[in-house]
């Protein structure tokens, strides 16, 4: 675990800094590459920023809705800066919906937008898994491999590092695709890659609560995403070759 930085009354976890760095690099990557996907659509980045800024607002609103009675008793807490009073998952989902609405309003192709965001998402996820290492979360099962790291009293698979390295590999593949202009269905290919990664790596997860009778739910979800993405890619290839033949 990385240290906590104490500044006066504030106890700032280094994982927060890593997440902010990840967002910054991710946005920079999208900004650098989006013109390859969306021509003359200047509102695209503005929509991204709106969606990004809405995440904390939606996260807080979702949290308030879940615990409405408690907030009605202490309404001042609505504006509390405490990060424990957020629901980040709901915030991200609602912001994604907002982004879709904004893109639709600006008549920007949603498929091209998702493809344009792929490099940024993969870059952000490298930092996200490093932040999990900083927090001591998402740790691996105990192991005797020489590269195991001692966490919570026993040597464990450095699962967060496995994921960070895997996402680094995916990011460099995406960067290469952008350079060589092999950008068709980039997001679908990205989903194929991360599905395979989650199917393979989730077995090594030590803090996994989502196991039913030995079956890892993440692996099953990964398999479903993998099949759908591969079907989409194959159908598209078939359609393209039929069009070409005609």
């Amino acid at each position, binding site marked *: 675990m990385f240290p906590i930085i104490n500044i006066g009354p504030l*106890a700032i976890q280094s994982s927060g800094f890593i997440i902010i760095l990840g967002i910054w690099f991710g946005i920079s990557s999208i900004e650098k590459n989006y013109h390859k996907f969306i021509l003359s659509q200047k509102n695209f980045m503005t929509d991204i920023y709106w969606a990004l800024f809405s995440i904390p607002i939606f996260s807080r609103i979702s949290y308030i809705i879940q615990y409405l009675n408690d907030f009605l008793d202490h309404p001042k*807490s609505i504006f509390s800066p405490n990060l424990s009073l957020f629901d980040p998952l709901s915030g991200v989902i609602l912001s994604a919906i907002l982004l879709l609405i904004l893109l639709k309003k600006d008549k920007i192709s949603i498929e091209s937008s998702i493809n344009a965001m792929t490099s940024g998402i993969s870059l952000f996820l490298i930092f996200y898994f490093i932040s999990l290492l900083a927090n001591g979360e998402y740790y691996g099962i105990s192991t005797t491999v020489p590269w195991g790291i001692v966490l919570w009293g026993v040597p464990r698979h450095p699962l967060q590092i496995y994921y960070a390295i895997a996402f680094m590999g995916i990011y460099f593949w995406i960067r290469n695709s952008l350079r060589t202009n*092999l950008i068709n269905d980039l997001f679908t290919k990205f989903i194929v890659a991360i599905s395979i990664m989650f*199917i393979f790596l989730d*077995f090594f997860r030590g803090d996994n609560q989502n196991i039913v009778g*030995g*079956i890892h739910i993440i692996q099953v979800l990964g*398999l479903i995403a993998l099949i759908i993405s*591969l079907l989409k890619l194959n159908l598209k290839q078939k359609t393209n070759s039929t069009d070409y033949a005609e």
Partner: protein
Amino acid sequence: MDIFKKYQPQVSIMIVILSIIWIGFTSYESFHRDPSILNSPQVGFLAPNFELKDLQGNTQKLSNYTGKPIMINFWASWCKPCQVEMPAIQNSFQEHYPDIIFLSVNSTKQDSISAVSEFVKNKQLDFPVLLDIQNAVGSLYRIQALPTTYFINSKGVIQEIIIGGPMSETLLEIRLQNILEENDVSNN
């Protein structure tokens, strides 16, 4: 790339088959994995046991409260956020004790017993204040910032850790309700 495109359907089927085989193999392995939970100051682990004397000189042992939800608050009398959140903790104690056990561990190595006694008297705190004179419990729980608060369910498993503060009364109430609800579910 051309070869991959040529054989894309076959490669796709192969990837799916290999994934299913891997999921099957790992499910078998996971099913036979030791499900016991280790003691560690981390969410999802059993809260490490400790024994400390309180301000009145009574020995308090965490394991004595097994079967009840517990809130442990690490603090010091000079720490501003700790001072701010104490009245909220006292209110919650009055509302939830004895359904929830409240233990406040003072980092006495960086405080003084007289300052702690005065603080407890001024704030009229009724819950047990334990004195961590050697910082043994602080080290055991790897406390890096004050205040730090642990919410432990009735099975002794750490459900949430809040680092820093002050905790608002709303936040405190929500977290206490969560550990209480889990207690009710396991009792039923």
